[in-house]
């Protein structure tokens, strides 16, 4: 437990350091990374493919803008945008030797063993070690589990468990966390179920009103 905490502290202070170190050179380079143009291209191509499956709109023998018209335009835009972003990324790489966006890590640059796999691994490790990223992952995971078990367990139990989990992760003390979770779940259930007649999933435990 203790060890774990130390680790977290260490990695966070490391990050602070790297952030201050890289501040002058990467303040504008951080915005450019390779994954963004790739994502845009994926969106564009997918949109174009599925748009082409949509029917054409023909009226009195003339082909007019139909359901596929607008999405196709957008698909073309995303492909063009991907090229533009790629060019901007390349020009950024040219101007800054230390790399752009996700690869801007002075520490991996400083080491002589700069094989791609090492960099990738150290990056994954850095991302995974980061307290904030862990919290985000935990929160999203908890949210998904929450929605999955909500219909069967009901709002009161799942809401309580979810709220407690998040509070404890965010360093709340246990007793206030339990109290707040109970109060929050009951108040929300009261507002939505009693006042607005929203059928929140009841599950195995429900309010008396």
């Amino acid at each position, binding site marked *: 437990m203790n060890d774990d905490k130390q680790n977290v502290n260490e990695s966070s202070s490391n990050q602070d350091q790297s952030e201050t170190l890289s501040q002058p050179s990467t303040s504008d380079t951080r915005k450019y990374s390779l994954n963004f143009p790739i994502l845009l291209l994926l*969106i564009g191509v997918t949109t174009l493919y599925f748009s082409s499956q949509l029917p054409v709109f023909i009226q009195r023998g003339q082909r*007019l803008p*139909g*359901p596929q018209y607008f999405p196709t335009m957008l698909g073309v835009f995303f492909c063009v945008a991907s090229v533009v972003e790629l060019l901007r990324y390349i020009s950024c790489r040219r101007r800054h030797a230390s790399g752009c966006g996700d690869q801007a890590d002075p520490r991996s640059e400083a080491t002589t063993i700069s094989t791609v796999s090492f960099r990738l691994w150290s990056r994954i490790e850095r991302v995974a070690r980061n307290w904030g990223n862990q919290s985000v992952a935990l929160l999203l995971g908890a949210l998904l589990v929450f*929605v999955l078990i909500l*219909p069967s367990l009901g709002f009161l139990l799942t809401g309580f468990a979810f709220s407690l989990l998040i509070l404890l992760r*965010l360093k*709340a003390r246990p007793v206030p966390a339990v109290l707040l979770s109970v109060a929050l779940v009951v108040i929300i259930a009261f507002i939505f179920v009693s006042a607005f007649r929203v059928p929140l999933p009841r599950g195995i435990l429900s309010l008396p009103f």
Partner: protein
Amino acid sequence: MVELFVQVMHPSILFPWFMAMLFGIFAGATPGLTATMATALIVPISYYMSPLAGLAMIIGATFTAIFAGDIPATFLRIPGTPASSAATLDGYQLTLQGKGGYALTLDLICSALGGLMGVGILIFVAPPLAQLALRFSSAEYFWLGLFGLSMSAVVSKGNTFRGIIAACFGLLVSTVGMDVTTGHPRFTFGQLDLLSGVGFIPAMIGLFGLSEVLKLVSNRDALRQPSIASAVKISLRKALPVVWRHKFTVLRSGGIGTVIGALPGAGADIAAWVSYGMAKKFSRNPDKFGTGADEGVIAPTSANNAGLAGAWIPALVFGVPGDSITAIVVGAMLMYGLRPGPLIFEQSRELVNGIFLIAVLTQFMLIGVGLLGIKAFGRILQLPRNAVIVIVLMFSIVGSFALQNSIFDIYIMIAFGIIGFYLEKNDVPLPPLILGLILGPMVERNLRVGLVRTQGDFLPFLTRPVSSVLAIALFITLFGGPILGLLRRLLSKYAAKRNEP
């Protein structure tokens, strides 16, 4: 008029309205919660009330939140909402001089005055504009929608091109569901829940609620609690004469704020900065700015509340929202079964008058609620950040579920929370996305209806008088800046060459 007043003062409207204003103080004064998020969280609740009560809640909460954002900005130099970042300059300097209470009293009065001015302009400008808009055809609406989108891309923080990407992503999401003219399902992949499109409200809660929470959670420093300011003295008697002395600053800032707010895409935050700059330019002693000048407090705060009112002008008249808050308002109105646009001034004149009256009264109520907020500020900050995060999370979940009693909508909310978080990390602004989502059907329908009417000929889109003006405005918005920069560079090169020999 009296009848309307009695109707608006009915407890079924007054109570939620007042509660929403208290909520606005809380949301505005808590750094990390914005006026936009407050609106997003209110909409699901307001769904179960009359449209007027729902709109009263939104109006009350947003005007209060924009003021309340100045409270932590003045005391702690942490803007509570993006629109109050200009208040960190002179307001905070006054706090350092031990005059924080005075600065905020000044701030509060000018917020109400600026808001009042914005609403006044809204009341006088909107109906005649609506008369003009009645003559618009699909070509004009198409350009208007595109103009709104490009403006929002240009003025948003971050770079313009990514703003356009965000807007187009919003447009793309808006095409999911049944096609507007033929009824053919698009991009639904057999999901029945997607037939009616991606729910606007859950998407928006995800973009502005969940993604903010993810941002807060990912940054450990944000969880740390700011220190609390000492006892606050409120001095109305000292502040009122100062406001009177700077009445022209208030008037000018209110005017600038309303106009900037009315431009599609430009919101209260830009209004505040521009009027701060103008006030400095016009001031007799501009050197005092940044060291605790009264005008430095007055100008931005009059402008941001006026900007909020100004944003309602295009939203009500054309159905083209002026900022992300009114984008949500337009979405909410569609949800209540009201269609914003010129016709609303004829078909639901009563409701429009109700909105106007509520907006005016809110400015007066703001003084009382605001004073309460200044006093209670210490308490608000004592609320631990982790509790705030959990409260926002729970309301985001239940709020997105409650609209259609649909679990599917919660997934939509989560998906857009992740999308918003990812996009903001990549320097892509979110307001154009939400505008694209809400304007998508309007832009697409008007483009296609127009093209079908002209048998596929695009020329009439450019030759109708109002549309040609809008098309030129669109061109200038998108390319004016870069072209000007290019010209300037060429000129300076030319000048340098001539000077060489």
